[in-house]
């Protein structure tokens, strides 16, 4: 797996133990209580963001950005892919697909076949776009609602 440490990346996987083997020696955070202690220019988040409220995730990510700290977020939660710029899908001990988040999400059939599905707002946008109700994909629910009504 090739990781660019200067781009925030989500690795969506069903086997975090296998993925963590690629990050031996890195600053790995597995406990949400340790998030505040991050002091590195690169950090591996091991399925911890799920314990935070959305607003706290945004504050935490902004803090990382202000300190120029990049991250890899390892998770099974498809909603979290929207926190980063790059997405790697890792199952069956290999990288299935990778690239900029939106490019990977366009491979919806592969994501559904692998069992991950799509983030809610992206999925809804996609279906509404398919049925001609909107002209684009929107990732903000307020913007999407304002387009419809």
């Amino acid at each position, binding site marked *: 797996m090739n990781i660019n440490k200067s781009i925030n990346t989500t690795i969506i996987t*069903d*086997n*975090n*133990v*296998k993925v963590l083997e690629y990050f031996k020696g890195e600053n790995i955070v597995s406990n949400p209580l340790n998030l505040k202690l991050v002091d590195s220019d690169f950090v591996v988040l091991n*399925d911890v963001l*799920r*314990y935070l*409220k*959305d*607003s706290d995730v945004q504050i935490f990510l902004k803090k990382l950005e202000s300190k120029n700290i990049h991250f890899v977020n390892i998770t*099974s*939660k*498809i*909603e979290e892919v929207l926190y980063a710029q790059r997405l790697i899908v890792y199952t069956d001990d290999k990288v299935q697909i990778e690239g900029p988040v939106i490019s990977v999400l366009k491979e919806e059939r592969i994501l559904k076949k*692998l*069992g*991950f*599905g799509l983030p*809610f*707002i992206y*999925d*809804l946008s996609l*279906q*509404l776009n398919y*049925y001609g*109700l909107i002209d684009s994909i929107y990732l903000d*629910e*307020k913007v*999407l*609602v*304002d387009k*419809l*009504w």
Partner: protein
Amino acid sequence: MVEDILKLDFNIIGVITPRINLPSFPKDLSKVVTYKPEESLKIVGLDIKDLDNLSTKEFSKLQLAASLGNDVIVLYDFSKGLNRKEINYFKLVFKRITKHYKKVILVSRDIEFLATTCDYFAIYTNHIVYKTDNIFDDNLYKYIDMPKIVKFIKYANSKGACLNETTDINELMKDIYRRVNEN
């Protein structure tokens, strides 16, 4: 905690609590999955011989396999490590389990998972702080984040969309299509 929750007369109960303490298991698989071990492991899709180095997914599945013989099944952070397809499978397993007069209690902070799985929701610190059977109950959101589908529907309805309250994206999609075409 379990005693308070058991008094609630619902089958699949979501308990949202700030601290979740995962159970610990002995190292011997045969001491963990004691009720119909082969069948239990098959139901949860777990194919392991020992408990060394379990992934979060395997740990979640092991919790369920270890509990299938109980009348009350309590699972902590169950959705962790599972992908959406697996979560949908286990939702059906829970529905089947509760048809046999069993109760399922899901202790989690994953509100997206709980919203589409549970009949009832309880916010718990040292006691039940709030409880409701309605995921669209605004009082819940003094304590937790809103699931994205609930947030979308509430905002849309504040704009006059008149959407039905649902946690099913396909039902929502049909409803949006109807409402937009009515206008």
